[in-house]
């Protein structure tokens, strides 16, 4: 790796095949750069993320997990946002029990063209995680 003098945080993104993944693809297409230590696993819907997967990621050394949620665009129904929110709060509880800062798990709705917002989210999340590392 190029030593840029600053290491980036390793972030796992759960993206969704029809909504947020196209936005992440478009960020690439538009060459909107973000840290290369951000990895996406694409699933059908953000309300299908199991808390144990998130915990597994922290266990394996990810500094942060980000759920790029479908929001109101979800093709599977209105309840998606609420359900994804619930997963996040449940997982936050589990994280506290394991002494992982809840701030390491974030969620935001990323629509299919929200490339810029995705990149902005990633950069700020990365910055925050780095600060937490430093602290």
């Amino acid at each position, binding site marked *: *790796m*190029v030593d*840029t003098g600053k290491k980036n945080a*390793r972030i*796992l993104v759960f993206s969704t095949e*029809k*909504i947020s*993944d*196209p936005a*992440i*693809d*478009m*960020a*690439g*297409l538009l*060459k*909107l*750069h*973000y*840290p*290369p*230590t951000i*990895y*996406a*696993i*694409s*699933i*059908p*819907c953000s*309300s*299908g*993320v*199991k*808390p*144990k*997967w998130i915990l*597994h*990621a922290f266990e*394996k*050394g*990810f500094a942060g997990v980000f759920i790029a949620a479908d929001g109101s*665009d*979800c*093709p*599977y*129904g209105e*309840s*998606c946002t609420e*359900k994804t929110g619930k*997963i996040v709060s*449940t997982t936050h509880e589990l994280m506290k029990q394991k002494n992982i800062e809840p701030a390491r798990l974030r969620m935001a709705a990323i*629509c*299919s*063209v929200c490339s810029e917002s995705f990149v902005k989210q990633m950069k700020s999340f990365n910055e925050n995680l780095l600060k937490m590392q430093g602290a």
Partner: protein
Amino acid sequence: MNNKLGVYICHCGGNISDYIDVEKVRQSVENEEGVFLAKTTMFACGDSNQKEMVEDIKNNHLDGVVVASCSPKLHLLTFRAVTERGELNKYNYVHANIREQASWAHSDDKAGATEKAIHIVKAAIAKVRFAESLVPIKISSIKSVAVIGGGVAGMKAAIELSDLGCQVYLIEREYFVGGRVSQWDSLFTTNETGKELVTRLYNDLVKQKNITVYTGAEVISNSGNIGDFKLKIKITPRYIKAKCNQGELQNAIDVCPVEVPDDFNFNITGRKAIYHNFPSEYPQSPVIDIKNCTRCGACEKICENVDFTQKEEIMDINVGSVLMATGFDPYTPADGEFGYNSFDNVITLPQFKRIIDLSNEKLTFKGREIKNIAYIYCVGSRQVEGENKYCSRYCCTSAIHAAIIAKKKFLNIYNFHFTRGIRTYGKQEVLYDESSRMGDIYLQSYENDPPVVTGRNDKAVVRINDILTGKREMEVEADLVVLVTGMVPRKDNSVGSLFKLPKGRDRFFNEIHMKLRPVETVIDGITISGACQGPKNIMETANSALSAAAKSYSYVSKGELELEPIIARIDKDLCTWCNACAQACPFNAIEMEEGKTKNVASINNSACKGCGMCLPVCPTDAINLIAYSNNEIESMIDALAG
């Protein structure tokens, strides 16, 4: 577990290999567990590589395949087909996106991009080890299509689908079909009028036996899926009996005391609460605008066909595919934008076209004769500050055409075009030439210095620093200022939200891929056509309508469709039937099944859409989604973390 895997890493002709050390990726993964062969290729999607992959799979009896290339939206299906030709079940294929999510996203950091690509490919390898052979779920598909929107796109698509043998429901929100085109007068290139074109189309339409046209109709709910959409349609009544005496009805219109702005004429004229737009339109029956009707009963007294007892109807229809043709709205300028709503002789292009159509002999507006007309281009398009960055593509030609028509129809018309560079692309260029020859004046403003409209006496003065005469400040005293407004997405796009159609950066409906799948959307079974997808002229609209019709037809023509077998699966040993999953399921796909020792959950395979909402709610972790099981996701996480 698959343990004889083939991995292919694509250069993408430089798109990937310019930023990612493809050979290094190959070397880093060739010794991964289960990898039998790892190759790089210039174009994974090219014919010769596809052939090579087929040979590799057959000769070596590979049981899993990974291609690391572009986004799966482009080529997942391509490589699944390759896998199938290699006589391996296509679900043993996993796609790794190292272009959009690595080489392009990190083109500023080659080492970082390479490192990321290695992990992405390793994760795909981890996933493909767990991949299993699956059989697509077959569902029957109803040979009928709902076409939403009865403008030229919708009508053209409906006729086409009907010709091809489909049952078609044409659903129009307004009370008359024809959409925007019926509002235009003479059209470029044929000089046929909009009314004539629309009349021609609905004459074709009504000849077809298998088209049902609903006007005043809106889709209010949608359930179901490709092959079997269940739509509820609300039909508002016309308050006029189907068969009626035209003369009486005209009298009824005449006596109506209510006058409201006529939106068919973009509010430059008024109409009654009982009205129709123009004599030959379809359906041949006026309508009572019940929102504005005072129920005075004047019409009832004259015409026995007026019927206030008619009620709103809700219809259920069942279709295999939905074709969207909902069109556009003309941009409405903000108050004060180029004098709009500040000076009363500043109007929009659609209004101007109606004025030309409605004026005889003399061109008049608000009782004043019009001689000097200033056209200001790119209003609502190519905005420097506003959110419409796109070019509306039809407006240059349309404005020039209207200017020519005005000049030919009326005496002493002087046209002044305040442009930002004329875009009469293709053969439309001849129109630009023609208008110049007729003496129209063209001026062009600098990008950051748009024309300014002020008032003087009862005229509007348009001032510009003209590029073409070397920055000279020019001004025109205009009797009429026409704002050449572009196309914007429909203000009320609720039907789009109903179907969850994604929108592009321009907020129009978005296709999957402009070149590969130009009329399909990410929502299976729903196609888009015409200006709801983005600005288009009539010819382009007709082409896209016919393309969309052919695509919708292909969804329903065979009576059967294959669906992805990616559905939820219950581990009956772990399940304790608590009902949480059934409650979470938005599709009622989970039911209780009585077992010998205990009750367990059971998935209805044809109802399950594979969203996974049931997974996180299960207290015993007894549900997994096929292809997204704990094993698959966790091993991918391991690979990405490593």
